[in-house]
């Protein structure tokens, strides 16, 4: 007898009143536009003419941007469905290849995304700038900032200055040029007050993260707040910024601020993880109600991982490693997940959870690929360097690897 899906364990019920609210759409704060309604409109337009590439791409872009804001993969599924007439074609129109690459990259099919981006760039088609930019992001996620720099350099003179600069800063700061990149962004940002909100948001978040790695905490906090203001005025939620800022706040023991920042966003897994961590931190300081919330949120995360796995999907392993390390305090398991994650994703936050798990389990051997990567890229990150040197003491004092 195979195990019952956990889904069957839950008891169905009849709500007490017709007024019981069962679902509530996430809406960007302060925004008047109802993006899901707009999406449904273009879905209807597309349904009337499903093989029209312009309508399909327009719909896919709307769906992807909504998927980003709400952290809901459904929208990526809608986007993929809209592209289904061309999905298996080797070389559809450049716009379709670009949208397809974005979805593949979101699904962590980096090779598939690269194939589409490479072909758009090779054709020098009119989406070539976007292809360079997207490919740079993919290369950064894959831990190859040197290759990403070439794509960023290709943007110079073809896009606005802030976009090219942020791209270069993003890759350059991962290659021993962090202080220079920090200075560059600090100089350019005030001159780019009229740049689109999305571009400024990206630049501010990038600058904050560089400052964190260099130990410039005051600047980091300032830039995170600036990015938050940009986000709020743009009317679009950016879960990436919220997660990044929350990690910064958690490192500085500002859990109440995290709870306020992420209030009502527990639907997004990455943010639920940060909420659970904030509550756990408050609970450790003696807050009994926070303990109850932390336990419930931890439980909910576990259930989401289980349900995702039951679908046969990949679970985002960076977050899963964090879950095991910070919430379940199971460092050996966290290390296994983090090592697996490192095969695909190689950003500083992937390195951090792996090194922390390796330190907790006194296992420098498992961390070797990350230590090699740090050496190769020349990444400047105070926290990662401290973790690396902590690991090296294990290597010298306990050669067997056991404490």
């Amino acid at each position, binding site marked *: *007898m*195979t195990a*019952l*899906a956990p*889904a*069957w364990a*839950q008891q169905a*019920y*009849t709500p007490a*009143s*017709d*007024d*019981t*609210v*069962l*679902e*509530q759409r996430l*809406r960007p704060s302060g925004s008047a536009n109802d993006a899901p309604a707009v999406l*449904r409109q273009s879905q209807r337009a597309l349904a009337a003419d499903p093989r029209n590439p312009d309508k399909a791409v327009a719909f896919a*872009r709307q769906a*992807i941007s909504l*998927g*980003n804001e709400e*952290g809901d*993969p*459904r929208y*990526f*599924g*809608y986007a*993929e*469905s809209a592209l289904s007439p061309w999905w298996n074609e080797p070389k559809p129109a450049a716009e379709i290849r*670009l*949208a397809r690459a*974005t979805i593949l*990259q*979101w*699904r*962590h099919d980096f090779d598939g995304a690269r194939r589409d981006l490479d072909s758009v760039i090779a054709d020098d088609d009119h989406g070539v700038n*976007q292809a360079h930019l*997207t490919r740079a*992001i*993919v290369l950064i996620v894959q831990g190859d900032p040197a290759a990403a720099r070439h794509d960023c350099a290709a943007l110079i003179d073809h896009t*606005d200055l802030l976009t090219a600069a942020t791209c270069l800063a993003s890759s350059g700061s991962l290659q021993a040029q962090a202080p220079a990149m920090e200075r560059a962004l600090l100089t350019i940002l005030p001159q780019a007050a009229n740049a*689109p909100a*999305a*571009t400024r948001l990206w630049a501010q978040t990038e600058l904050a993260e560089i400052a964190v790695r260099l130990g410039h905490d005051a600047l980091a906090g300032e830039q995170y707040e600036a990015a938050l203001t940009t986000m709020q005025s743009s009317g679009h939620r*950016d*879960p990436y910024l919220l997660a990044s800022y929350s990690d910064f706040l958690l490192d500085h023991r500002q859990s109440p601020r995290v709870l306020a920042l992420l209030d009502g966003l527990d*639907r*997004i*897994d990455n943010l639920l993880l940060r909420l659970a961590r904030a509550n756990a931190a408050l609970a450790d300081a003696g807050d009994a109600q926070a303990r109850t919330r932390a336990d419930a949120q931890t439980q*909910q995360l576990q259930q*989401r991982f289980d*349900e*995702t796995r*039951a679908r*046969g*999907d990949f*679970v985002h392993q960076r*977050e899963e490693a964090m879950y095991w390390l910070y919430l379940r305090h199971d460092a050996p398991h966290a290390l296994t997940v983090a090592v697996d994650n490192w095969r695909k994703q190689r950003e500083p936050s992937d390195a951090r959870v792996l090194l922390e798990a390796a330190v907790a389990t006194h296992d420098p051997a498992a961390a070797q690929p990350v230590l090699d990567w740090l050496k190769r890229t020349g990444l400047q990150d105070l926290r990662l360097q401290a973790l690396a040197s902590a690991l090296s003491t294990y290597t010298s004092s306990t050669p067997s690897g056991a404490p």
Partner: protein
Amino acid sequence: MMPRVFALLLLLLMAAPAQAHKASTSYLHLRVDDQQLEGRWDIALRDLDYAIGLDADDDGRITWGEVRGAQSRIADYALQHLKVDGDGKTCTLAVDGLQIVEHSDGNYAVLDLRGTCSQAPLKLQLDYSLLFELDALHRGLLDLEFPGDGAKNSSHLSALFAPDAHVLNFEPGSTQVLRVFREYFRAGLIHVWSGLDHLLFLAGLFLPAVLRRSHGEWLPTPSLRKAVRDTALIVTAFTVAHACTLTLAATGAFTLPSRWVECAVAATVCFAGLNNLVPMVYRELFWLSAGFGLIHGAAVASALIDLGLPAGGRVWALLAFNLGVEAAQLSLLALVIPPTYYFRYSRWYRWIILLPGSAAVTLVGAIWFLERAFDLQLGVRLP
């Protein structure tokens, strides 16, 4: 133009850090109990809202009242996207309840499913197409349950429906074969016990079993053993012949016009009775019985085809059915022979049981024949 394009483009590329989040999933639990289907289907309210619109007042909130008001639309939408076939025949499926359940990513509508297949399926095919045309990432998680003999012995099969795997086939396995065997064995028993034509025909054959014909006269049979052996031979010959035509007809090897076959059956009943009144064949009766078995088998085949033979288990089902027929006939034999054997010397057995009984069988057989041959209504219910 450029800045606007880039605003859009940046939103696109921000997809890079993938959100760990469960994509749209529905949970389908289906229990196949003989021919009954019972199940529960959990579908996310968010998915239903996107597909058919639940938020009636468009305030961004979905209330229980709105869900309840959309119950029939939800049921229609769901049932349009799920097809259950048992042995190649579509099973009925209906939604007879709507509730709510909370999964880790929000509230789901819970549909109680109920349905019927034409028989306990040996092969089950599920065709699931919910949301696939809207959401390429949607998946359906299936838990298929086949109850065993006890509550604990039920077996579960899990599977995943995806756009490129939306039709799944299941063979429930040995327990289900056993269940089919039992079901058709029972159908064979009932066919004999409740089939008036069958009973009358057998009565015609059995009534003189404890007698033997000698020089134009009925004499008591000398031994019980001979009486039992002779009648068992008659019955078995009938069953074997019955099985032959039944199997051939039921597997589609040949088809006979049903009116012709039914007339022939009525004629055999009539003949069996008449043969006791005006003996025509009284030696080696089993040959007669075998010949009649051929005719009865052909008649039953069409009924059995209508009942729906499981495609994968036709041999099993036919064997079970024939064994059921044989068992029922032998049981009748065991019931009838001992008392008739006891009274075989009494005169009144002949005058009160054998002759009037045979006359009644002859008459009913004749009436059926007329009714079937000429499409008349003579007031005797057809079997």
